[in-house]
C-alpha cells in the first residue's frame, strides 16, 4: 500500500518557498517522493524522527533480499503486484536443491555438480537453478562443516539449515562473505540467535507456525536491526500454501502491513510429496508468489519444465519477448543452404527454429524486428512489409553467405511477395508453409532443389 503524495506533504516542514530541494513547493517534492523520483535527503529541514518515519513509509512494500554474491547472487522481493496481469512480477524465485550431510559424499557431490552444471539454452537465454540448501542432520558438526566448505567453493548461493544454533553459526562463519541464508530462525531460538546474527549480518529464513506465528518474530528482528528476511509459514499442503502465500502477499501490498513485507521461502522437499508430485508442488509455488523454492532433488527432465515455467510466469506481460534482428545459423549451413525469414517474437522464432532444426537441414533463418509481434500481426502493424523485410535482408549480410538468391517467406504473408521482390532486385521470393508445422514437409524438398 504505497503512501500518497498528499499524505507525505503533511509531514514535510512546509517552509515555503525555500525550494532547497529543487522543487517549487513541498507538494511537488512530496509527489515526486511518492513515485520514487526524488530522495528524502534533498530536504535539509527534516527532523531525524520524521525522516526515519518517511523512510520507512517510502520503503518498498516487500523487502529486497539478496542471497549470495557476484554472478551467482539471487535477488528476490520488491514485488509490486498480486496478479501478474496487473503489471508484472519482478524477481523470479531462486530454485535450489537440498543436500543433507547425512547423504553419502558421492551423492552430495553429484547434487552440487547438478546445480552448477545443468544448464539449458532457451530462446537465447541460459536457464539454470542457482541455490544449494545444506541441511545439518548427521549430528556430526565436523561432517556438516566439511559439506559447507565444499559447497562454498562452488560459488553458488547457499542456504544453511540447522536447528543447532552452534552448528548454524559455525557454518555461517565459514562463508559469511558469501551472504548465505540462515534457516530456521524460530520463536524458540530467536533471542539466542539475535546477538550472533548481528556479528555478521546475513539474510535469514524465519519459520513460524502459520502467519500469526511469523509476525512477532519479524517484528523483533526488525527492532534488532535485522531485516533481510524470508518468511516460511510452514504450510503443510498445497491448499494451506496457497492461503498463506496469498495472505502474506495481500497483507504486504494491500494492507501495507510491514511485519509481513518480506519475500517467502518454500520447501516442497519437506512437504511429503515424492517424485513428480514434488516438482508439481514447486510449480504451484512458482505461480503463487514464493521467492525461494527448495527441492529434494532434480534431474535434467524435471528441472527444465520448472525453469521454463519460471521464465514464462516472470516475463513482463507489457513487453513481448523478442530476439535480436539478424540472421541465425541453424546447424552448419553452407552457400547452398535455404534462407528463410520470420519475425522476432521469441515464440515465433523458437517454434520456427525448432521446426527447421527437426528437419536436420542446415539453414539460415533471418529474423526481422517486429517489436516482438508474430508474423501476421507484425505485417498488420506495418513491421513486416516487403520494403522493411527487404531492407533487413540487405543489411543483414546474408547475401554474401549464399550462392543462390532465394528467400522463403511465411505463407501467411504471401501477399508481400511482389513488394519484397521489388525491394530485393535479383532475388526470388518463395512462399513457404503457412504454419511452422508445415516446415517438416516443405524444407527437405526445397533444400534439394537448391542443390540442383
Amino acid at each position, binding site marked *: 500500500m504505497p503512501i500518497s503524495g498528499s499524505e507525505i506533504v503533511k509531514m514535510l516542514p512546509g517552509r515555503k518557498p525555500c525550494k532547497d530541494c529543487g522543487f517549487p513547493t513541498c507538494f511537488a517534492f512530496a509527489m515526486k517522493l511518492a513515485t520514487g523520483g526524488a530522495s528524502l535527503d534533498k530536504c535539509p529541514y527534516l527532523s531525524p524522527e520524521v525522516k526515519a518515519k518517511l523512510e520507512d513509509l517510502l520503503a518498498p512494500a516487500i523487502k529486497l533480499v539478496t542471497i549470495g554474491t557476484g554472478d551467482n547472487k539471487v535477488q528476490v522481493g520488491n514485488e509490486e503486484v498480486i496478479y501478474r496481469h496487473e503489471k508484472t512480477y519482478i524477481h523470479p524465485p531462486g530454485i535450489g536443491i537440498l543436500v543433507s550431510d547425512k547423504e553419502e559424499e558421492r551423492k552430495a557431490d553429484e547434487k552440487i555438480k547438478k546445480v552448477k552444471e545443468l544448464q539449458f539454452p532457451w530462446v537465447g537465454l541460459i536457464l539454470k537453478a542457482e541455490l544449494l540448501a545444506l541441511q545439518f542432520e548427521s549430528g556430526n558438526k565436523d561432517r556438516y562443516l566439511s559439506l559447507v566448505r565444499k559447497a562454498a567453493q562452488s560459488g553458488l548461493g547457499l542456504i544453511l539449515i540447522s536447528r543447532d544454533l552452534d552448528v548454524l553459526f559455525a557454518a555461517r562463519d565459514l562463508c559469511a562473505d558469501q551472504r548465505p541464508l540462515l534457516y530456521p530462525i524460530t520463536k524458540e531460538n530467536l533471542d539466542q540467535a539475535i546477538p550472533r546474527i548481528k556479528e555478521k549480518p546475513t539474510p535469514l529464513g524465519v519459520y513460524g507456525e502459520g502467519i500469526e506465528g511469523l509476525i512477532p518474530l519479524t517484528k523483533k528482528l526488525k527492532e534488532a536491526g535485522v531485516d533481510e528476511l524470508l518468511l516460511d509459514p510452514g504450510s503443510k499442503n498445497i491448499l494451506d500454501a*496457497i492461503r498463506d502465500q496469498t495472505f502474506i502477499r495481500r497483507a504486504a501490498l494491500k494492507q501495507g502491513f510491514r511485519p509481513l513485507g518480506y519475500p517467502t521461502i518454500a520447501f516442497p522437499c519437506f512437504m511429503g510429496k515424492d517424485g*513428480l508430485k514434488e516438482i508439481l508442488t514447486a510449480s504451484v509455488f512458482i*505461480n503463487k508468489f514464493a521467492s525461494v523454492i527448495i527441492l529434494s532433488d532434480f534431474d535434467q527432465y524435471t528441472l527444465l519444465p520448472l525453469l521454463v515455467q519460471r521464465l514464462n510466469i516472470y516475463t513482463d506481460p507489457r513487453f513481448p519477448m523478442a530476439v535480436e534482428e539478424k540472421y541465425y545459423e541453424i546447424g552448419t549451413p553452407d552457400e547452398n543452404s535455404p534462407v528463410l525469414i520470420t519475425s522476432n517474437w521469441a515464440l515465433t522464432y523458437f517454434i520456427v527454429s525448432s521446426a527447421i532444426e527437426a528437419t536436420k537441414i542446415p539453414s539460415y533463418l533471418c529474423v526481422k524486428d517486429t517489436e516482438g509481434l508474430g508474423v501476421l500481426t507484425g505485417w498488420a502493424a506495418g513491421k513486416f512489409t516487403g520494403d522493411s523485410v527487404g531492407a533487413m535482408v540487405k543489411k543483414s549480410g546474408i547475401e554474401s553467405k549464399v550462392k543462390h538468391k532465394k528467400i522463403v517467406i511465411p505463407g501467411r504473408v504471401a501477399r508481400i511477395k511482389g513488394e519484397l521482390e521489388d525491394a530485393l532486385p535479383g532475388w526470388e521470393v518463395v512462399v513457404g508453409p503457412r504454419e511452422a508445422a508445415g516446415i517438416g514437409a516443405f524444407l527437405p524438398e526445397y533444400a534439394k532443389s537448391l542443390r540442383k
Partner: protein
Amino acid sequence: MEYKAPVEAYKGVVREVTIGKGDKVLKIGGENILPLHFFDEGSMPNPPKFALEVLDMEPTEKIPHLLEPFGNAISDPIQWAKKCETFGVDAICLTLLSTDPAEKDSPADQAAQLVKRMVSEIKKPLIVYGSGDEKKDAEVLPMVAQICAGENLLIGPVQKENFEVVGKAILENGHVAIAQSPLDINLLKELNVKLCKFLPPERVVIDPLSSALGYGIEYSFSLIERVKQIGIITKDSMTMMPIVANLGDECWKTKQAKENETQGLLWEGITALSLYLAGANLLILRHPETLKLIKETIGGNGRWPS
C-alpha cells in the same frame, strides 16, 4: 498495527453449467471465490473437473510414452474412451480430428454417427470438439447436435466465423456451447455477447485457447486469471462463465514432451496446474498419469469428497 487476515469477498458468481443428463451429469463453475481461495468469503462448490481426450482416428504421430497406457484401444475411439474411463476421469473429450480438410476430410454424418455411438456406450458425460476448421465445423457440429439431440453435450469450438449456425444447432438440440476465441479478452467478450443474444448464458463455457508451457502459457495463464477476476470481482456478466482449458494436445505437440516421458508428464502437468490455478473449471488432458499426478498433488484436504 495489528494483523487482520486479508480476507476478501466478491460480488460475482460463475454460472453453474451442467453437462450430460440422467446419471451421467457433470457440474462445473458455481464459485464466487478465486481458484482454491477457500480462505475468502464464498465457496467453490464444484472442484475443477478433468477430461481425457480421445481422437476419432488413430494418431498419425505415435509417441510411445503417450499412447502406451491405452494399448490397442487407440485404433478404436470407443475403446479408447472406455479405457479413459478406467483412469478416473470426470468426462471424455472426443476430438473429430478426421473431419479436418487437412486430415482426412471425413464427412459430417460419419462423425456424427460416431458421437452418437459413443454417447450410448460410455458412462461419463461427453465433450465434442470439431477440428477447428471453422467452415467444416459449421457442417459437422450442427449435425452432431442434431443427431444427439437432448443429450446435453458440451460442443465446440464455436467461433466468431460460425457462431450463428453452430450456436443455433446447440440451442435447438439442447446442448452447451464452447465459445472459443484467440487469446484476447475483448474478442472473447464480443463472441459471448453475440452468442448470448440467442443462447442462455448458462449454456456457454469459455475456451480462451490454452498454450503450452514454453509456447505461450503466460498468455493463457494471465488471460484466464483476468477473465475469472473480471467475472468474480467486478461481476461482468459476459465473463461469468466456466472456463475450459483444452491443453493436452498443445502440450504433446512440443518437442520437450515428445522426447522424454517424465518431461512430457511435467510439461502437461505444469501447464494444467498453472491454468487450474489461473481459473480453469474444466481441463482436457491427454495422459492419464498427468491426471493422477495433479489430483494427488492438490489433494482435497477435506474440502471436497475425493
